[in-house]
């Protein structure tokens, strides 16, 4: 992403943040209307966690088809960002829950599903740490991601059947919910975060590529010593 796009992204998210304070009215009907406005920040974070999970699954699938190491790096980068946004969504969600329901954690279906996503990401990173050889690591972690994906879709689908939800189901998409200003702010913030996501994703990949180049250079430098003459019989 070039400089101008980065600056525009920065201005956009800063603008949305300011608007969330000055333009967005307090949410009537909640226990503390001022604080309930948290949703415009919290919900986009949760949405991006799912976006990252989806991106991770797509690149995992692509990796198994192509066996291209860069595709594996992309899957890994998406998982890392997913973890970051999952943490942000959980923390902002608990702050909201504290204001609204008086306790930071309620085992609400959405809370549970975001924690499960964090667990999947954590398991994914543990698996990556447990395999030494790079192509094998890429293969196994891609396979795991593709197993966890349908399981998570199922979990998110079945949880509301089992546990009562505190979250409203369709205020986001229905016209008769909150003030339309909420929808505008929330989606604008989501768009801004998505741009930031792409930015972080590309930076993460550049780190990965630089690391690979460094390893290759090392390899070349140490190649002659790698095969001691005494080993041949």
């Amino acid at each position, binding site marked *: 992403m070039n400089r101008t796009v980065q600056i525009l992204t920065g201005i956009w998210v800063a603008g949305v943040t300011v608007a969330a304070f000055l333009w967005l009215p307090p949410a009537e009907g909640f226990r503390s209307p001022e604080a309930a406005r948290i949703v415009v920040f919290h919900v986009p974070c949760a949405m991006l966690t799912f976006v990252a999970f989806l991106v991770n699954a797509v690149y995992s699938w692509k990796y198994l088809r192509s066996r291209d190491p860069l595709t594996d790096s992309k899957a890994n980068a998406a998982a890392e960002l997913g973890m970051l946004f999952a943490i942000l969504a959980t923390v902002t969600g608990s702050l909201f829950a504290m204001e609204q329901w008086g306790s930071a954690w309620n085992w609400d279906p959405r809370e549970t599903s975001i924690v499960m996503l964090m667990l999947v990401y954590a398991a994914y990173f543990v698996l990556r740490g447990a395999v030494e*050889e*790079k*192509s094998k690591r890429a293969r196994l972690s891609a396979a795991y991601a593709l197993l966890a994906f349908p399981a998570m879709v199922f979990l998110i689908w079945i949880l509301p059947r089992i546990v009562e939800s505190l979250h409203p189901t369709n205020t986001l998409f229905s016209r008769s919910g909150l003030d339309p200003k909420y929808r505008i702010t929330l989606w604008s913030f989501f768009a801004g975060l998505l741009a930031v996501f792409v930015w972080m994703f590309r930076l993460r990949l550049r780190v990965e590529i630089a690391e690979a180049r460094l*390893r*290759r250079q090392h*390899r070349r430098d140490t190649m002659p010593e*790698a*095969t001691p003459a005494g*080993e*041949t*019989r």
Partner: protein
Amino acid sequence: MKWQIVLRRVGKVFDERTVLRDISATITAPGAWVISGPNGSGKSTLLRIIAGLLTPTEGEVLYLYNGERLTARQQRQAVGMVAPDMALYRPLTALENLRFFARARGLSLRDSELLEWLEKVQLRPRAHDPVATFSTGMVQRLKLLTALLHRPPVLLLDEPGSNLDEAGARFIYQTVKEHAGHGIVVIATNDTRELGYGEPLIQLGA
């Protein structure tokens, strides 16, 4: 010239370490061929690639029958392999091991037939003993048997004679000669005795 294995510019890289580079060869039935080279030169890796156990990073291995490419399943059925890294099920008896490999490959062989096979390698008296109790030579003969059970046209042997006594080595030699009469044998070795079992195919450097 019915059976052919074609190696087309095969290469293998583990992480950034190149194990094999740009290997091409055509193996035609009948005959025995030898892949030689010092330890760590990639003989086993190459043989595993030929067997289809390992996917090469570069190039490809083609199995041809009358010029037609085989499917993955046909290729699996066409290969028998013996390697130090391919163990048998040690808690199971010799007969049970044979029974499993016969059934897994879809062969309908009765026990009496399997016992005849065991007779051929002088293991019939030990048919009902667990493989764990076998000596190295006996295990090697049984491994060879499981590799030949489905009468594959292609036999791949990785260091077949290592740790074997004179009699064991002679048995390997006979099997190779017999199989090379109608099919393909590929031997990976750096044992001076075994180098003469077939024509040199590929010489790998360190």
